[in-house]
C-alpha cells in the first residue's frame, strides 16, 4: 500500500495544479451544468409541490452529464498533449495510474457538484441539503468516477471519443443513477431512513465492486 499512496497523490496533485492554472475543466463543466438546469426548467414545468419528486432527478442528470464532460476532458487533454505516454513510462504500477487519475477526476467532479448544488437549490427552490444528501453525492460520484476513469481511458483511443464514452458509461452506471436519485429523495425527506439506507448500501456495494475490478483491467488496456 505504501508504494501506492505517494504516486497517487503526486498524480492527482499534478492534475489539480494544471486545473488551477488553466481552469479548463471546472469552468466549462460548470457552465454546462447550469445550462442543464435552465433547459430542464423549461422542458418540465416544476411546480412547488413536485419539487421534491423531480428535483433529485434533474440534479443527477446534470451531475451525470457534467461528470462525463469532466472525465472525457481529463484524458483527452493528456492524449492530445502527448503526455499520456509520459505517464505510461513512469515506474509506477498501473494501479497507481488508475487511482491517481481517479482521485483527480473525483475531486473535480465534487468541486463542480459543490458549486452546482447551491445553484440548483436556488433555481429550483428546493430545500433540504443534509448530511445524508452529501454522503449520497459522495458515493455516487465515486461510482461514476471509478467506471468513468476506466472507460475514458478506452474511449480516448477510439475514433469517435465523444460518443464512445457515454455509450460505454451510461448503461453500466444505471444502478448508480437509480440509487443516487432515490437516496437523494430519501435524504431530503421524501422517503424514510430504511429507504435511504438501502440505496446507500447499493451505492457502497457498487463502489466496492468496481473499485476492485476497474484497476485490475485498467493495466491490461494501456499497452499497445
Amino acid at each position, binding site marked *: 500500500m505504501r508504494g501506492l499512496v505517494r504516486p497517487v497523490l503526486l498524480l492527482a496533485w*499534478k492534475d489539480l495544479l*494544471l486545473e488551477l492554472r488553466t481552469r479548463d475543466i471546472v469552468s466549462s463543466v460548470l457552465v454546462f451544468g447550469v445550462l442543464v438546469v435552465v433547459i430542464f426548467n423549461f422542458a418540465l414545468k416544476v411546480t412547488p409541490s413536485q419539487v421534491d419528486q423531480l428535483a433529485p432527478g434533474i440534479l443527477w442528470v446534470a451531475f451525470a452529464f457534467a461528470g462525463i464532460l469532466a472525465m472525457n476532458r481529463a484524458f483527452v487533454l493528456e492524449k492530445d*498533449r502527448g503526455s499520456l505516454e509520459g*505517464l505510461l513510462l*513512469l515506474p509506477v*504500477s498501473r494501479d497507481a495510474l488508475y487511482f491517481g487519475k481517479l482521485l483527480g477526476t473525483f475531486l473535480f467532479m465534487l468541486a463542480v457538484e459543490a458549486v452546482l448544488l447551491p445553484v440548483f437549490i436556488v433555481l429550483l427552490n428546493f430545500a433540504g441539503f443534509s448530511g445524508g444528501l452529501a454522503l449520497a453525492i459522495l458515493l455516487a460520484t465515486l461510482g461514476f468516477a471509478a467506471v468513468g476513469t476506466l472507460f475514458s481511458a478506452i474511449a480516448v483511443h477510439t475514433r469517435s471519443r465523444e460518443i464512445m464514452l457515454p455509450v460505454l458509461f451510461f448503461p453500466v452506471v444505471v444502478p448508480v443513477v437509480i440509487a443516487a436519485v432515490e437516496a437523494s429523495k430519501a435524504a431530503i425527506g421524501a422517503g424514510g431512513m430504511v429507504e435511504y439506507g438501502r440505496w446507500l448500501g447499493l451505492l457502497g456495494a457498487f463502489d466496492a465492486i468496481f473499485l476492485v475490478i476497474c484497476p485490475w483491467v485498467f493495466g491490461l488496456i494501456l499497452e*499497445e
Partner: protein
Amino acid sequence: MSAIRVVGLWKGYGGPPVLRGLDLDVSWGEFLVIFGANGAGKTTLLKVLSTLARPDSGEVWVAGFERRREAQAIRRSIGVVAHRGFLYDDLTAYENLAFYGRMFGVSNVRERVRQVAARLGMEHRLDQRVRTLSHGMQKRISLAAAILHDPPILLLDEPEAGLDQEALGMLSRVLQDWKGEGRAVLMTTHNLEQGLALGDRVAILAQGKIAYQEERTALDLAGFRGTYQRYLEATS
C-alpha cells in the same frame, strides 16, 4: 550482459506485422543509431523496448530485465525522449521536471533539477511556462526529464527533429558525455549526418528486421549513404 537484447521480436497491430523476427544487441557503453524509412518500425521498436507496447512473440531484455515480467524495473532503468514531448504546457519547466523527478523517485529533487538544467544550459528558463518556450528549449527540457533519474539506458526517437544548430550541438555533447559514462544509448533518426556523427554503431531497420549494421569506424561513408538510399527506395 547486454544493455539491450532482442531475439526474434514480432509485433503487429492486427494487420501485417511491423517487426518480423527482429534481433538486436546493444552493449554497455555503446551508442547505436538506427536508420529506417517512415513506417519501417523504428517507433514500434522503441515502444516495445520502453514497455509502451507488448511484443507478440520473441524475447526482449532491457538493462537485464525481462520485458514481460519486469516492466516496471525497465521503466526505472530507461530515459525516453520521444518525437513528441511529454511536457505539460501550462506548467513551468521546473514544475514539469519536479513532477517527473518525484515520480521517478529522485531524491533531492530541487537540487537535481537545477543540476540537470545547468548541464543543459536552461537554468534561466526554469520558471517559464513550457507553452512560452521555443521548440528547441522544449526538447532540452524533455531531455532533462529523461536523464533526471540517471537511467543507465537512453532511448531517443528522432530527437533532432525541429532543432536548430545550437540545440543540435548541445544534444550531441550531452549524449556523448552520457555514453562516455558507461551507459547505453539507442537513437533512431532520419538525419544521416547527425546519426553518423554520434553513433558508435549504425544499423538500418527494413522489412521488420535489422537489415544492416556496422561499426562506424569500419564504415565507408559514401558506400553507406548508397546502401541507405537503396533501402529507402526498396520500401517505397
